């Protein structure tokens, strides 16, 4: 049997005394879009940070194509280049133009020439409607444009997996749509993605599978319609109930 693209096997991670991931198991197939939902503090962001090796895990394994990438012998920088991540608050570098932001990794980490990197970046910017903003600085463009630029930056290395950490949470409501549109397009192209999100409607729309996280574990995972219409676990029901009351579903 083929090993899935990404496997988290009993991953544990705590910050100080607080256990955030408590034996997390998750498998993601190639071309699959997995949405992580759950209350704040359930471990969604930490899971994504650990998968991109931004935080070391305490126990367990994270396997990419069957190889444990948390092993000491693995070159973490090389692993990070195979995975893209986009954060809630964009995190573009404020002292660089959008174009320099996007090409920095290719130019410095991958050794791509500036001309090639900029060519590739301009193609991507064009595709996501940002060509006019290429020379602008992050503080001169809107939040939605910032976030789309951050997605383009993450796409520059042709990542095998894209991680999206609540990428619309910091946006004004009228800007959410343009970012979700970009993600929808990427899903349509078959990019493997893991999304932590509070946009339940969007999760339902775009995900192949939705995982409800509770206290650092996947409590329930199912196809979106199934999970939203017919949640099995009481915790999931309560969470969805509250989300519905808040008008987010």
């Amino acid at each position, binding site marked *: 049997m083929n090993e899935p693209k990404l496997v988290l096997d009993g991953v544990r991670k705590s910050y100080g005394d607080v256990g955030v991931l408590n034996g997390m198991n998750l498998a993601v197939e190639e071309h699959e879009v997995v949405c992580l939902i759950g209350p704040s503090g359930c471990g969604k962001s930490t899971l994504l*940070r650990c998968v*991109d090796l*931004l935080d070391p895990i305490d126990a367990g394994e994270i396997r990419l194509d069957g190889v444990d990438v948390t092993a000491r012998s693995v070159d973490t*920088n*090389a692993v*990070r*280049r195979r*995975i*893209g*991540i986009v*954060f809630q*608050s964009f*995190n*573009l*570098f*404020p*002292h660089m133009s959008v174009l320099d932001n996007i090409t*920095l*990794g290719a130019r*410095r*980490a*991958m050794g791509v020439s500036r001309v090639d990197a900029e060519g590739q970046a301009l193609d991507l910017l064009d595709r996501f409607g940002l060509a006019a903003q290429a020379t602008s*600085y992050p*503080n*001169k463009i*809107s939040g939605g444009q910032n976030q789309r630029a*951050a997605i383009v*930056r*993450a796409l*520059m*290395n042709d990542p095998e997996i894209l991680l999206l950490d609540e990428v619309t949470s910091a946006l004004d409501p009228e800007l959410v749509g343009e970012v979700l549109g970009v993600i929808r397009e990427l899903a349509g192209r078959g990019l493997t993605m893991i999304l932590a999100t509070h946009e339940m409607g969007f999760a339902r729309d775009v995900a192949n599978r939705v995982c409800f996280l509770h206290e650092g574990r996947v409590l329930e995972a199912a196809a979106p319609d199934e999970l939203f219409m017919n949640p099995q676990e009481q915790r999931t029901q309560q969470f969805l109930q509250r989300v519905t009351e808040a008008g987010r579903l």
Partner: protein
Amino acid sequence: MIGRGRAYFDEEGARAGVIAVISTIVFFGGGALLVVNSANWPRVRDQFFSSSDFAAAWPDVLSGFWLNIELFAYSMLVIPLVALLVAVMRSLRGPAFFPIRLLSVVFTDVFRGIPLILLILLLGFGAPALQISGLPNSATFWGLTALTLSYSAYTAEIYRSGIDAVPESQRASSRAIGLTQWQSLRFAILPQAVRNVVPALMNTVVSLQKDVALISILGVRDATREAQIYTSRTFNYTSYVVAALLFLAISIPLTRLVDYYVGRDRARRSQSQV
């Protein structure tokens, strides 16, 4: 900004301007009268503000002042580099870099902890006595070294505060695009950190420009030392005033430049919060 300048010419502003002028004249004029009318003023005037002594002391003090300028220029070249190195050493992460971090901490603790004047005396008199081959034995060199070490320690802390002020998320996103720790520092963190602390660095430059005078305690013939020599020869203190004026001639424009830069920087930052 423009509006504020113009306000002085408005009707309201004109009144304010007149009041400001009158109050300035009363305040400073009153102060001057107080000094000039004090019983010992004529003696003090001859001791500190004698024009003939001013002319006589000027050439030597000025030539000493060129040494101050020269030392200031050398330290300005070295301090930013040493300080940046120390700050970067301290901000490296991971257990393997512990000795480097420790070295950086010891450096800042020691050289920031010793009063500058003491450090100049210790190195200025102690180091030449060691007669280390290959290193200059002059008091000027070791005094300058002491000055550089002390200011580097302070400046390293300024850089470090700038590095700490860059949000952790910037480090995460630079690592996420595949940059190594060093590349992320070099291309993402340091440019932002330095920009954060430029005003603080420029203030350090102003105080460095004056502290160069401390090197005179080693007998190095800078402006202060030359002024002292003149005084001990003639028992007239006007030479000190000459030296003070020379320092002011540099430090006041420098301070204005810093103010201008900080103001512009602040305006630009507040503007950019879209």
